[in-house]
């Protein structure tokens, strides 16, 4: 297992491997350097679970190791797509999945034009980022102008404007967990404050969500639209039905295990064992 920091999840995966008698090699990528001309099979192994908390570390590692013939879970292409909300939305649309109406623009002026079409309130998200970080609710034109002014002073990636309709949903969304070809668990993430974001990293509460056929189908299709592997699919309940708004690549499940009783860490180890056969 490749990692940079040890969250609850990395420790749980490590302990699950021990429980199952699997000798999981722990590789702290921050301690390593790689000669690109060399083969890294001996130090890494023929299959590795990529669990970096830093998206860019994980993406570059996946690219490097995959080019050396190592099976990286999740693979480079899936990591690239799932780590970028724009690319994810495009992949979901291509797979004919329902998504919130989304616009892309590159300047504040064009973004205001996009918002005139999209309507207020709308949501502005960084294309790369997680835990609800810098996700902004634009209630009106004045708030949009103000947020765009800040964005224009930031790193170029933040000057890519990914604008999305604010879906009229209950104060919760659904996170389903796909491992291989199975939806193994799902939770409702319920806002606990006036914050419109439901991320458990922002204090959203996790409650078990029953996996019915509709949820199972949309979750599997969304995961398959990105690739093979392990995914967290974020789904909203709109008046028109379920819509997928994100697919996450390095899933966190600290709040899901107690809410659902599902041994996600154990299932990850089993998935790796099966895949390595």
């Amino acid at each position, binding site marked *: 297992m490749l990692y940079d920091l040890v969250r609850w999840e990395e420790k749980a995966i490590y302990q699950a491997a021990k429980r199952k008698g699997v000798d999981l090699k722990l590789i702290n990528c921050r301690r390593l350097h790689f000669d690109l001309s060399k083969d890294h099979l001996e130090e890494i192994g023929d299959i590795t679970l990529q669990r970096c908390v830093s*998206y860019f570390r994980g993406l570059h590692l996946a690219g490097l190791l995959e080019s050396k013939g190592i099976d990286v879970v999740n693979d480079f292409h899936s990591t690239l797509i799932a780590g970028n909300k724009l690319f994810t939305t495009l992949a979901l649309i291509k797979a004919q999945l329902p998504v919130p109406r989304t616009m892309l623009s590159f300047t504040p002026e064009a973004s205001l034009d996009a918002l005139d079409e999209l309507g207020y309130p709308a949501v502005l998200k960084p294309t790369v980022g997680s835990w609800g970080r810098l996700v902004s609710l634009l209630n009106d034109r004045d708030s949009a102008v103000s947020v765009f002014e800040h964005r224009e002073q930031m790193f170029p990636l933040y000057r890519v404007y990914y604008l999305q309709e604010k879906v009229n949903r209950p104060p919760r969304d659904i996170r389903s967990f796909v491992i291989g070809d199975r939806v193994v668990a799902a939770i409702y993430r319920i806002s606990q404050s006036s914050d419109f974001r439901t991320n458990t990293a922002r204090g959203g509460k996790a409650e078990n969500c029953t996996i019915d056929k509709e949820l199972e189908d949309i979750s599997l299709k969304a995961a398959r639209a990105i690739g093979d592997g392990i995914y967290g699919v974020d789904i909203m309940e709109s008046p028109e039905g379920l819509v997928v708004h994100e697919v996450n690549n390095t899933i966190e499940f600290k709040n899901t295990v107690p809410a659902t009783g599902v041994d996600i860490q154990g299932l990850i180890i089993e998935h790796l064992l099966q895949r390595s056969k």
Partner: protein
Amino acid sequence: MTRNETLKCQDCEGPVVVPNDPMEGEIVSCGDCGASYELVVGENGTFSLNPAEVEGEDWGE
């Protein structure tokens, strides 16, 4: 490997307990002031602390 060693916080000198089954890079906190550290495992198996990395803009799932 199971051990419960206590290290000293670099800020307030309070106790930072090494958890069971410690992993290199694991985040540990000072019991007094709450400062966060990454656990470093030396070549001889000894533990030391590095101040935890500040959340990066690309951190997450």
